[in-house]
């Protein structure tokens, strides 16, 4: 299949935004009903109490916490694909990153609901938020549940920011498409105008945006590892057999990426089919995901083998007992199924034919999702039902409220994803265009620091606008113009052009200083919050002298680092790229987000003929006086 042109990419990616067929609304309605049923059951449960679920001593955590861990895990693959693969400079990331990020945002939103469901009296959730209360009661930062709030809260915030920032250029493309088709006043146009916050694709914007995006990726990567580690430490900090083991953190993170990749595969195969995105999302993308799944399978398998081995090695009676019962007790069927589904089934991807077969990919994706849900179930409820003493052992039976709420929130996830795929571009359009132009991840040109001020071009300036059909040669044009005294130039493009940016904006982007300041103050702030709040009452809890319990406070400091680093990164980008302007400059042409490249030369009317003459040799498609 030949490489798609810029125009084809643009049209393919934005085609799903057209008005929907009735089938779409029908499916949306069914999912809404499912979700609605789940909410009704939740309201009923809140009224009547958690006794209607299967929860009973000693099993205090069951399907709701399983769902919580499962959905956080699903979110991880999105950040892996967006952030980690961006840092790795993987090419196959571009077509799937936007959908994966959206999946992350929705999965984490749903995950965050489950502790509320599990709380019963969900209105008291605010107890755990650190705020100066009347009675000077602060949450205990030595508790893993409080780390959860820090980590999941940070993850939700940063994922949403990362997703929305990534969407800015694509929202601009949608804005221009809709403005052209439906006019400026149409609600969709307004939506995209707000989301694109004045994006024009100018080189100034790309320059600062590019650095900010890199920092977002660099911050999101350790965040994603920390979040699921913190969730795993909800269990590893306890003394339960099967829970208290040091391998939980990397084991959970690998499992999260495993289940998340399976969900991405399971979501994208139908999405690609329904929205005809075959030219952009090819079988190579799925093969790359399948290969990554082999790695996660091996890590998960490694953990599955080591746990019983160390249980025996440790000589601990309760660990050995639990390892034995897990394999032979009442949920042995789940344990053996999950081993099969999570480790043996995905190993079929070792064979190339399996990796490139759509049906196999879809089946394996769905099976791994089931297996990973079961794994969470076995870890959480299994350890609780087979704890230390035999008289305490129990069988857990699902009741209808739990099944309804689990089902309802699955419906919510697909409902949100379906809304996303209709209203927002599901493909990172500018990245795919950059890839097809062969410029993705090109090495950064050496920038030279000049003492001269960068040309600040105002929104209402007049001058000459030249439109080109290709970015080749833009660098020579700019050099020639600058040599002839026309230095106030701005370039426009649908994707980042590093060499052009280096010429027009040679000063290193100051966004890095914003980010560093935010990160350092966030880290100090996190430690200050934890140590300070412990000092308020100086309670000696759990044998750990709280004010000096710096080991768990590292987590709070770390999440603060990421959160404030990301927020200041965002602010730095908005400020330096001058985003947030309501009206677009007069020199802007809507084709610049599609497949045309522009050069705006701000000059007095006397200089215009000279500029036209200089430009003529480079054969622009159009030259307009603005």
């Amino acid at each position, binding site marked *: 299949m030949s490489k798609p042109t810029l125009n084809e990419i643009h049209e393919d990616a934005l085609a799903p935004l057209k008005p929907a067929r009735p089938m779409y609304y029908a499916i949306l309605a069914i999912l809404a009903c499912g979700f609605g049923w789940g909410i009704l059951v939740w309201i009923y449960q809140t009224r009547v109490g958690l006794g209607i679920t299967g929860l009973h001593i000693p099993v205090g955590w069951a399907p709701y916490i399983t769902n919580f861990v499962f959905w956080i895990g699903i979110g991880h693959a999105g950040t892996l694909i967006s952030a980690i693969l961006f*840092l*790795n400079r*993987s090419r196959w990331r571009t077509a799937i990153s936007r959908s994966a990020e959206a999946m992350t945002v929705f999965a984490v939103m749903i995950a965050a609901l489950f502790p509320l469901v599990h709380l019963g009296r969900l209105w008291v959730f605010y107890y755990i938020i650190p705020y100066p209360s009347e009675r000077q009661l602060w949450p205990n930062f030595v508790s893993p549940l409080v780390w959860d709030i820090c980590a999941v809260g940070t993850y939700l915030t940063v994922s949403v920011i990362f997703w929305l920032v990534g969407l800015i250029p694509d929202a601009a493309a949608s804005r221009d498409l809709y403005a052209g088709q439906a006019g400026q006043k149409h609600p969709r146009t307004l939506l995209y105008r707000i989301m694109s916050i004045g994006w024009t694709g100018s080189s100034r914007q790309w320059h600062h945006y590019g650095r900010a995006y890199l920092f977002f990726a660099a911050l999101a990567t*350790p965040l994603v*590892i920390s979040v699921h*580690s913190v969730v795993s*430490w909800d269990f*590893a*900090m306890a*003394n339960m057999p099967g829970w*208290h*083991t*040091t*391998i*939980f*953190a*990397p084991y959970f993170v690998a499992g999260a990426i495993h289940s998340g990749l399976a969900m991405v595969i399971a979501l994208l195969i139908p999405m690609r089919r329904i929205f005809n995105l075959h030219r952009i999302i090819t079988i190579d993308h799925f093969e790359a995901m399948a290969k990554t799944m082999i790695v996660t399978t*091996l890590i998960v398998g*490694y953990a599955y083998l*080591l*746990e019983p081995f*160390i249980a025996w*090695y*440790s*000589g*601990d009676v309760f660990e050995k007992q639990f390892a034995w019962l897990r394999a032979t007790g009442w949920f042995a069927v789940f344990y053996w199924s999950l081993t099969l589904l999570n480790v043996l089934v995905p190993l079929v991807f070792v064979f190339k034919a399996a990796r490139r077969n759509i049906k196999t990919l879809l089946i394996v994706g769905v099976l791994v999702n089931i297996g990973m849900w079961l794994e969470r179930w076995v870890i959480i409820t299994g350890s609780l039902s087979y704890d230390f003493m035999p008289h305490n052992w129990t069988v857990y039976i699902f009741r209808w409220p739990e099944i309804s709420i689990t089902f309802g929130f699955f419906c919510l996830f697909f409902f949100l994803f379906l809304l996303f795929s209709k209203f927002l571009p599901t493909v990172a359009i500018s990245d795919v265009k950059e890839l097809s132009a062969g410029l993705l991840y090109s*090495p950064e040109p050496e920038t030279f620091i000049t003492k001269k001020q960068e040309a600040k071009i105002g929104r209402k300036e007049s001058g000459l606008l030249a439109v080109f059909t290709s970015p080749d040669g833009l660098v020579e044009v700019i050099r020639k113009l600058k040599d002839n005294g026309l230095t106030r130039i701005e370039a426009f493009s649908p994707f980042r052009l590093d060499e052009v940016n280096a010429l027009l904006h040679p000063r290193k982007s100051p966004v890095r200083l914003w980010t*560093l300041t935010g990160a350092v103050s966030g880290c100090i702030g996190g430690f200050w919050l934890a140590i300070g709040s412990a000092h308020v009452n100086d309670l000696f809890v759990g*044998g*750990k002298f709280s004010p000096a319990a710096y*080991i*768990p406070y*590292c987590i709070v400091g770390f999440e603060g680092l990421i959160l404030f680093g990301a927020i200041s990164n965002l602010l730095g980008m908005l400020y330096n790229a001058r985003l947030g302007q309501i009206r677009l400059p007069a020199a802007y042409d809507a084709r610049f987000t599609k497949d045309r490249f522009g050069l705006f030369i701000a000059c007095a009317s006397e200089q215009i003929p000279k500029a036209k003459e200089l430009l003529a040799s480079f054969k622009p498609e159009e030259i307009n006086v603005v």
Partner: protein
Amino acid sequence: MILLLGVAGWCYCVFSGDTARTWRALLVNFIFFTPLASGMIVWPAIAIISQGNWARSLERTAFAGLYFAPVSIAAFIVLWFGHSHWLSPDPPQGFWLNSKFVFIRDLAALGVIWVLGTAFVNRARKGTPSTLAGWLCFAYAVVFTLIGFDIVMALDPHWFSTLFGGYFFVSGMFAALACWTVLSILPGIASAEQRHDLGKLTVAVSLLTAYLMFSQLLPIWYEALPKEVRFIIPRLTEYPWRYVSIFLVLTIYLGPLVLLLTRWSKRSPAFLTAVSLLMLVGLWVERWWEVTPTLGGQLTFGLTEISITVAFIASFMLSGIISFGREKL
């Protein structure tokens, strides 16, 4: 020459003076250099699997680790003669930690990794892509998990940590990366882009190592169970190990993050080499810190440690010289 001097020095120390300490010194050097050398071969394998074309021209410097194979096996066999000094005589695990069984399986494991490594290097030199890269990575993880459990964790058979094997092989890869960086920069082989990538990779792997260390520290500290916390008590609270721990946090765990933050620092050959050498020293200290408090040693560096360390360094440099000569670098 230096190698022979080092070995002679060590042998002298074995037969006179504090024998436990001399065997410990050999152990520390074995667990530092062996994962380093075999890890160096694994890095190109990882680059191949992840299609990281940036590293192709640097592969040949990484293959220098291969020539260390005979030294590591010889060191292991020599280590065996002194096993009474470091392997527990009557472990609760019974047959699993029986000295003969440990010796045979670990020797076999070493054999597996070196044979696979040799096969991979031969294929890579001929330029034939192979699935051997994947197998090599997997084998490295399994072999050094086992060696980590048997040679380090078993020093105190009452202690255990499920992640210890994982931490051991990842920190081995960290040492291998630091050594690969030094070997690629000193002869001027790595370009600015490649140095930048090596620097970024160093930060990533150091954070990964720190994460795996923290993942063990946190649950063990939190629950303070006697059978687990026995490992961290001397290293967190007792003099002088406490200061060694602080030194390690500042150098190998958080050092690269701070030192290699800027673009310049990663591209500058001198600075990156200096940081990588610091990492190598730090990781050696880390291996020593894993072993010595458990075996009741003191914070002393004398002829014992220096002689055998020098011997190992010399043999490693010898293997590097042979390799570079072969590759005509």
